[in-house]
């Protein structure tokens, strides 16, 4: 097989975890890792959706401790490297040491796109363990190309081997991606990657555009399983890349089978762009808020769309899931007051 033109990182077992409220079991992990590995995927990311240590009231408790799942993934993979994600402030450097012992060799250190200096400690720990360290700038639509370059240079100076920008709200149109990737590729010595979401139905085209601007790492999830309206579907990205003449090193048909036979049956609902999902992309709201907002809307009898829009107005960043309850309670109070005035 020829050398792939970009490296594909599959995040079904990490970002996909949001869509199933972090209820993965060992047998799911084994089947998904085996399927991705056999299809030729080079890197498989696995962790709680909010990264190592994410199991919590705020983000949802994992059904099975993530380190048990990670250990299984490391056992069954043959060629694919196993990666994890860590958000400083949620997970600890000690978590990196533990998963490295289990066989995880790639550490993605994720942070809001303006706070790169928080990643120094964890990037350096990952490097000292001999891991590949990837800096992961989330909610990248909230920073300018120049601003992202500044942040990425910090991560590069800490020793990051690759820098990603993540469209965590699925809010970018192709032009936004092109300008950001172009600026990063120009300014950085290390390779650039893009993690796309599909809230505006742009995930695949944005990923291709990122490749054309010089990104050499792209993320996907099987069947698009993931936060918000879902991620860039790995099998579609592989198929579209092939049509563009871009070598992926993966077998699109094997990925399609995996999506259909293994991943889709796990999905509590199809990964479609319904109005709440579209609002995330339209208003630039963190994708993982979607299901939490749905539950809070039900609990307090308020509108999920109103919750999401208010979170956008407050400029909430990834990790502030507690603000969903805050917003729901305030909306409920306002509605009650409005009814009283009418009565």
């Amino acid at each position: 097989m020829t050398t792939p033109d970009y490296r594909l990182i599959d995040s079904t077992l990490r970002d996909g975890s949001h869509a199933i409220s972090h209820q993965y079991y060992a047998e799911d992990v084994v089947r998904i890792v085996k399927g991705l590995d056999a299809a030729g995927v080079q890197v498989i990311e696995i962790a709680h959706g909010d990264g190592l240590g994410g199991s919590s009231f705020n983000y949802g408790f994992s059904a099975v401790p993530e380190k048990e799942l990670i250990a299984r993934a490391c056992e069954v993979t043959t060629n694919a490297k196993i990666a994890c994600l860590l958000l400083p402030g949620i997970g600890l450097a000690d978590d990196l040491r533990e998963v490295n012992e289990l066989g995880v060799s790639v550490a993605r250190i994720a942070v809001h796109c303006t706070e790169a200096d928080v990643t120094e400690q964890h990037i350096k720990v990952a490097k000292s363990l001999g891991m590949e360290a990837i800096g992961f700038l989330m909610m990248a639509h909230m920073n300018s190309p120049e601003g992202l370059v500044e942040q990425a240079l910090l991560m590069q100076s800490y020793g990051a081997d690759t820098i990603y920008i993540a469209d965590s709200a699925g809010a970018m149109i192709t032009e936004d991606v092109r300008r950001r990737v172009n600026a990063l590729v120009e300014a950085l010595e290390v390779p650039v990657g893009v993690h796309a979401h599909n809230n505006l139905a742009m995930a695949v085209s944005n990923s291709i555009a990122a490749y054309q601007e010089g990104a050499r790492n792209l993320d996907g999830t099987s069947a698009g399983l993931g936060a918000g309206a879902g991620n860039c579907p790995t099998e579609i990205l592989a198929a579209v890349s092939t049509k563009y003449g871009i070598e992926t090193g993966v077998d699109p048909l094997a990925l399609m089978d995996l999506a259909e036979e293994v991943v889709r049956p796990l999905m509590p609902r199809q990964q479609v762009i319904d109005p709440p999902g579209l609002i995330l992309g339209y208003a630039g709201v963190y994708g993982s808020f979607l299901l939490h907002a749905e539950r809070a809307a039900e609990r307090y009898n308020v509108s999920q769309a109103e919750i999401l829009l208010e979170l956008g107005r407050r400029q909430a960043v990834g990790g502030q899931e507690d603000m969903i309850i805050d917003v729901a309670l305030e909306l409920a109070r306002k509605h009650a007051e409005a009814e009283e005035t009418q009565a």
Partner: protein
Amino acid sequence: MRCVILGSGNIGTDLMIKLLKGTDASGSGATPLELVALVGIDPDSDGLARAKSLGIDGPHEGPQWILDHADDIDMMFDATSAYVHARHYKEYEEANIVAVDLTPAARGPRVIAAVNLTEHLDSPNINMVTCGGQATTPMVFAINRAIDRLPYAEMVSTVASKSAGPGTRQNIDEFTKTTSMALREIGGAETSKAIIILNPAEPPIMMRNTVFAALPEGSDHDAVIESVFAMEKDVQQYVPGYRLKNPPVIEEGPFNTPGGVVPHRAVVLLEVKGAGDYLPPYAGNLDIMTAAAQRIGEAIAYHRADQKAGA
């Protein structure tokens, strides 16, 4: 009691302004703390200039200045860094100077002003945990005292990016580990987790803290809520901008927590608005530290005075 502040950055300068008001932390009486100096290392710092303009000595010789003047100093507030405190804390102790440590160095017993204020009054060194710990441990304690057992507690602290200094940023694990430990050791939770988020929004957001607590079967929900409201008042005695953003709520699960499956959780949504002394009001995370430091320093001063009177 004669005291000095070490560290002329934001926190040290804010504490200076609080102490110079002359009133105690509750604002109801005169403070027993007499500020002798704000000690820095940079002669050109804004904090030292501010000290001099307010008629306070502002030397820039750092810890050595304190040791050189040990006979005239009873207490020091350390607003430097964990590194600096760890290097010098023994010298303060040998010089018979009580240290109230605002850094995460954790050399002395931990004190949360609203919970265990009077537990370590004779200790030569007091550690103040973290800003998030000062804000949330009282609520964990309040919930725990209203129920039989608290299997798991969690706090989420969101602070404005502008109010998170380089110390916090370079060692964010220290913040979460120390805070989590306080939720167990002082708050009374059996297991715990702490999370910190930085938010860069403009204008900067007020410090927000959320406490989640696992409520086992048979917990008295009304008692939990009543206890939380009572604690809000206790903290407000020395941090006027501390408030429940919404009334506490009890949500139905089940929740598969590290302390076991529980049927309900309590959610306490807090906001801390700073007093705006030196720091802007959004920096409630820094304000709650300086306010608690004053409270703790005064408690030690009253305790020493009582001992003298008794002797």
